[in-house]
């Protein structure tokens, strides 16, 4: 090894000449050797080998007892290097902590650096660092204090903050500025991760704000920005101070040091402006902002905050103009961004810059292009939509190679769909279908799943004119058939799904097109390797619709044979359906009537046609049906807690209410209205859809108009050009281009101007429809043309949103189209009854088609059910405070055996669209029980399994009901907080399995129980135990007998058993569940309590000590 080192040294002359000390040399050279070795390698594989070798050698050396701290420091740098290259060196973490703990200042520095690079906030080893940090914070060496503060602000376990908070607080008064500054930032970090714990030192922040050192003041602005953002009203009194500071800064009162390229402290100014923005005192702001704007260079920095000051909008618009025109590309970009921001309120501002914007469209930088497109998107209106969409289409191929495309895609598609919905926007049907095809084939699988759904919905619901609808669909069929005849292998999956749905549904419209041809095309899709099984099931569904009249028998037969035995259950089911329906014409006509989207479909959702079959079977001696979870429960719990654990989800009074519905149509419409609205509201907080339903979307428009008029006048006075008088603009394209550039222009220039006039047309005109898409919502915004009842539209939207991308989407989507929007009152009521039957258990949804229909049917009414059934009482807006209500409701589900015990708060663990998973824990005498609640939020059965400590049996949860599981927990290895981590996996009947991760945190104290021993036994045990820790704790000294008081507090808070108190000493015992003892010896010593903990279990004394400390601090 050493001769290699020698060689390396000679090979690296000069590099190492800076430090000629021998120790330094060898240490650097080892790292140098490694680096050199790596640079010489050619393949990743060799590098891997070399690093592994290196890591082994580091590992050997760090664990050797002979390694000095100095060598350790060098080893640690090498480990950091390896980690940077992406090779884990986890063995060195503990040594890094040791180095920080035991080394001298220099070694400490490396140790701290390594720790802060290796570990993260939640790493368990970090707890071992707490004491070191405590010690260093108290050190007299400034550098050590700095290091400690740095590491604290990088990462510190949240629970340990109280331990060091007083020390950090103290540092706010430190004579050295750098310490004060770091302390302020550390406190800011604490504020971010645990705001409650720094509540009491807000006054000290004020002191920091008034600090004589500008650096400390700057640091304190971080905190104020955060606090003012959260509570703008609370800091009104400080506004004047901020303004004064800003004025001083702008006025050049700071030392020259703070100037950056002759701008006085730009960073400080940005920060101050941000704060002032939130302070909402317009007058003051106007004053200041105007001040800043004159200092143009400053404007570079805070273009965004400044452009949002309404008072100086026009001044800032002028500045933005300078930006956009700037030759410096960074400034151009920022200008465009600011413009995008501003035009949302004032579209007219874009007019001044139209030529620049056009130029930016052709800019070689993709980022600039993207920003320009976003800007255009913001100014889209009726007249310019097709031009803008065209421009965006040109941009599409580039999107693939950038990371930022998803958002643009979504915006883009929303735009197209919207334009078509508005009808007058889109040039024609062909354009629409072709554009969508392009977008689908390019954007493909990157777009959000609900986009294709809304496209299909638009197709199936159609518009007011039947003839137009027919043409549109016909064109879609034609275009898709030709696509499939081309190279379908290149199309993305989502697009294939759309194609197969459209062909299945509408190919009959094209009479000369034979079903057999289409079937063959579809079958070709199935054979392709790249086709996903989700797409395959779409294709099979489409084939089922097409196989009428024995068309393409051979093809269907072949397909059925192939997929009839598929391992994928969904595919197999589809294949079976196809087989049966292709053979039975009559059944087919009933199940899948042509053009079903327009006709009402009656569904016997109570499965009454099976009644005969069931009663026969019962008569023949069959056992009545029980849902699987019921069967399991009965097996599991012989003592039968309650046979109807979910009974209360449908109180009797409510079912009578539903009967009333049947009699009174008005009531029904009310309730169905509710069912339609509630999913939307709960999803989006009722933000977009409903308000947009009106014909005029006037939000912000009124304000804009009223505000614009005076401004417009002034514009007239200043620049009397046609550009500024928008009402003429539409008519005067040619004159406009002349006004823009009076000199004769070359050909490309003219093209640009034409483009400009088409892009910016209608921007100023009063009559133009309001711009769309200010917010990035997607389907919610679409206005619905179909005049179905609210209930069906709401529900179907809900379904397509929440279930999109699971295979069952196909079912729902189709069902929703099959079902008519007019749901008769009978249907609603019958499904209501059916649901109630379901929750009592006897009915099963087994049939193939019936399942789908039932599914969608339930979705129509269930929201009403939830609302009514008392789980979520009759609150008009239950989603406003769901947690509280849920908590209440979950409480009722606590198993009866626990009713007497107090339980912790029910904490939500993970929530998604389908499951709501919460848990609480209960302390029993001999165990700790964890009770988990699974609330099934959606409208289907779902089976699930929770695995954490051990796998639980598979259970089933019905729609909107709660399943309860309980576990008994024990601790294997003690730590300050015990975290239960697990996954809940769940599956819908016809769906792929999903899983959700959760973690639940408990303090160790939940596992501590008193241990009753005598003093003799205690003495015998004491000597046996090997692990111990000692620490001094604060005494509670307000009473007569501090020792007894303190021990009593511990006893009460931590459930310890006080064995005996003899004079100045006390002995205490406890155990960790189940039987791991821990003994504690306390002794009064010089006003503190020296505590000595011993246990056979490693880590237990340390952890318990921490909790004792906390308990006494909190007292």
């Amino acid at each position: 090894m050493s001769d290699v080192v020698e060689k390396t040294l000679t090979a690296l002359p000069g590099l190492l000449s800076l430090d000629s000390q021998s120790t330094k040399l060898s240490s650097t050279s080892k790292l140098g050797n490694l680096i050199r070795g790596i640079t010489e390698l050619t393949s990743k594989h060799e590098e891997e080998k070399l690093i592994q070798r290196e890591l082994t050698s580091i590992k050997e050396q760090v664990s050797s007892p002979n390694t000095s701290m100095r060598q350790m420091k060098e080893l640690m740098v090498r480990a950091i290097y390896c980690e940077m290259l992406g090779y884990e060196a986890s063995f060195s973490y503990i040594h890094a902590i040791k180095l920080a703990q035991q080394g001298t200042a220099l070694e400490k520095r490396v140790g701290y650096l390594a720790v802060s690079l290796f570990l993260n906030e939640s790493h368990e080893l970090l707890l071992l660092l707490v004491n070191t940090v405590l010690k260093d914070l108290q050190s007299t060496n400034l550098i050590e204090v700095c290091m400690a503060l740095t590491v604290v602000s990088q990462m510190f376990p949240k629970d340990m903050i109280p331990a060091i908070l007083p020390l950090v607080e103290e540092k706010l008064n430190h004579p050295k500025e750098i310490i004060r500054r770091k302390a302020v930032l550390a406190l800011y970090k604490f504020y971010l991760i645990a705001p409650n714990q720094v509540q009491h030192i807000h006054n000290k922040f004020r002191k920091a704000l008034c600090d004589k050192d500008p650096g400390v003041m700057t640091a304190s602005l971080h905190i104020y920005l955060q606090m003012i953002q959260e509570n703008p009203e609370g800091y009104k009194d400080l506004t004047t101070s901020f303004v004064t500071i800003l004025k001083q800064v702008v006025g050049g009162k700071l030392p020259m040091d703070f100037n950056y390229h002759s701008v006085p402290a730009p960073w400080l100014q940005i920060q101050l402006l941000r704060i002032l923005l939130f302070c909402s005192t317009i007058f003051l702001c106007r004053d200041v902002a105007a001040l800043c704007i004159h200092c143009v260079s400053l404007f570079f920095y805070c273009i965004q905050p400044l452009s949002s000051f309404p008072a100086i909008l026009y001044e800032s618009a002028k500045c933005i103009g300078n930006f956009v025109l700037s030759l410096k590309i960074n400034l151009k970009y920022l200008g465009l961004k600011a413009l995008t921001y501003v035009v949302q309120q004032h579209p007219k501002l874009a007019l001044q810059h139209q030529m620049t914007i056009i130029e930016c469209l052709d800019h070689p930088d993709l980022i600039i292009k993207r920003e320009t497109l976003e800007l255009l998107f913001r100014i889209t209106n009726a007249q310019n939509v097709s031009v803008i969409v065209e421009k965006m289409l040109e941009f599409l191929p580039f999107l693939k190679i950038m990371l930022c495309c998803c958002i643009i895609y979504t915006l883009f598609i929303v735009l197209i769909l919207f334009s078509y919905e508005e009808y007058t926007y889109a040039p024609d049907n062909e354009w629409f279908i072709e554009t969508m095809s392009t977008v689908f084939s390019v954007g493909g699988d990157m777009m959000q799943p609900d986009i294709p759904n809304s496209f299909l919905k638009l197709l199936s619901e159609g518009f007011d004119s039947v003839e137009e609808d027919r043409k549109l669909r016909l064109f879609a069929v034609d275009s898709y058939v030709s696509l499939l005849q081309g190279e379908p292998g290149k199309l993305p999956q989502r697009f294939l799904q759309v194609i197969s749905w459209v062909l299945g549904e509408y190919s009959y419209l094209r009479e000369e097109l034979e079903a057999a041809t289409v079937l063959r095309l579809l079958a070709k899709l199935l054979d392709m390797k790249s086709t996903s099984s989700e797409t395959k099931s779409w294709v099979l569904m489409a084939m089922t619709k097409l196989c009428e009249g024995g068309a393409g028998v051979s093809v269907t037969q072949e397909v059925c044979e192939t997929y009839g035995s598929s391992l994928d259950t969904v595919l197999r089911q589809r294949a079976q359906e196809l087989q049966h329906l292709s053979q039975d014409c009559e059944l087919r006509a009933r199940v899948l009537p042509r053009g079903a989207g327009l006709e009402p479909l009656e569904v016997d959702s109570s499965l009454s046609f099976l009644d005969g079959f069931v009663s026969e079977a019962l008569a023949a001696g069959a056992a009545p049906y029980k849902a699987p979870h019921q069967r399991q429960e009965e097996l599991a719990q012989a003592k039968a807690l309650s046979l109807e654990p979910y009974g209360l989800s449908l109180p009797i009074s409510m079912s009578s209410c539903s009967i009333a519905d049947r009699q009174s149509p008005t009531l029904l419409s009310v309730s169905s209205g509710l069912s339609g609205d509630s999913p939307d509201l709960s999803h989006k907080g009722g933000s977009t859809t409903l308000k947009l339903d009106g014909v005029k979307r006037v939000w912000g428009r009124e304000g804009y108009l009223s505000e614009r008029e005076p401004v417009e006048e002034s514009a007239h006075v200043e620049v009397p050009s046609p550009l500024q008088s928008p009402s003429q603009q539409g008519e005067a394209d040619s004159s406009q281009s002349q006004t823009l550039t009076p000199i004769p222009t070359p050909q490309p220039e003219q093209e640009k101007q034409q483009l400009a006039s088409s892009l910016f047309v209608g921007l100023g005109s009063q009559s133009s429809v309001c711009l769309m898409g200010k917010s990035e919502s997607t389907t919610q915004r679409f206005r619905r043309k179909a005049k179905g009842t609210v209930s069906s539209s709401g529900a179907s939207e809900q379904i397509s949103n929440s279930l999109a991308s699971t295979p069952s989407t196909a079912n729902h989507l189709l069902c929703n189209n099959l079902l008519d929007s007019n749901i008769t009152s009978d249907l609603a009521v019958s499904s209501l009854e059916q649901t109630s039957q379901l929750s009592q258990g006897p009915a099963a949804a087994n049939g193939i088609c019936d399942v789908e229909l039932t599914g969608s049917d339930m979705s129509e009414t269930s929201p009403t059910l939830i609302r009514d059934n008392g789980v979520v009482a009759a609150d008009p807006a239950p989603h406003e405070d769901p947690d509280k209500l849920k908590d209440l409701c979950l409480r009722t589900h606590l198993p009866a055996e626990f009713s007497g015990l107090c339980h912790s708060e029910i904490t939500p663990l993970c929530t998604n669209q389908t499951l709501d998973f919460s848990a609480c824990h209960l302390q029993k005498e001999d165990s700790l029980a964890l009770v988990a609640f699974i609330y099934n939020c959606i409208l289907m059965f779902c089976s699930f399994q929770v695995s954490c400590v051990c796998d639980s049996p598979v259970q089933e949860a019905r729609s909107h009901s709660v399943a309860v599981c309980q576990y008994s927990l024990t601790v294997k290895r003690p730590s300050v907080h015990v975290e239960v981590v697990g996954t809940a996996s769940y599956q819908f009947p016809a769906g792929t399995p999903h899983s959700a991760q959760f973690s639940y945190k408990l303090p160790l104290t939940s596992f501590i129980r008193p241990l009753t021993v005598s003093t003799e036994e205690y003495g015998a045990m004491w000597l046996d135990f090997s692990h111990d820790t000692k620490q001094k704790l604060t005494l509670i000294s307000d009473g007569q007998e501090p020792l007894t008081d303190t021990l009593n507090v511990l006893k009460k808070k931590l459930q310890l058993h006080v064995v005996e108190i003899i004079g100045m000493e006390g002995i205490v015992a406890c155990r960790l569940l189940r039987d791991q003892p821990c003994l504690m010896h306390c002794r009064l010593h010089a006003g503190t309590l020296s505590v000595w903990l011993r246990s056979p279990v490693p880590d237990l004394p340390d952890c318990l000590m921490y909790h004792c400390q906390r308990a006494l601090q909190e007292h």
Partner: protein
Amino acid sequence: MIKAILIFNNHGKPRLIRFYQYFAEDLQQQIIRETFHLVSKRDDNVCNFLEGGSLIGGSDYKLIYRHYATLYFVFCVDSSESELGILDLIQVFVETLDKCFENVCELDLIFHMDKVHYILQEVVMGGMVLETNMNEIVAQVEVQTRMEKSEVKLSRPSG
């Protein structure tokens, strides 16, 4: 807040990696790779900002980078940071490095990775900008260097 600071060379070899938000080791490497991929493809005459990705913290993040000779300095920040502010901060950081190393080059960064980290710690602390005043930063670094020297001197007779 600054989420991460990455320095890598023209070939994507990392020279300094500092994350202020926790990411698993493999994710970190992925972020480095993808960032390099994005940044290296851009000419020197295009803008220094990249936006709208989903690597770190969803859409609320942008990359601000500068390219010096063989090295890329990339800061990943969230929307609360000003683009030009960060761009100039990179400049301040590099100028500071230049002062501390006297004509800094890639080799300095490779062989004194730890020292670069210490300098960075004086500029950015826990994701927040600590100091933008170059003289102040250099002064702090010098205090540490002095300590280093004195300690070496102390240990020399004994070692």
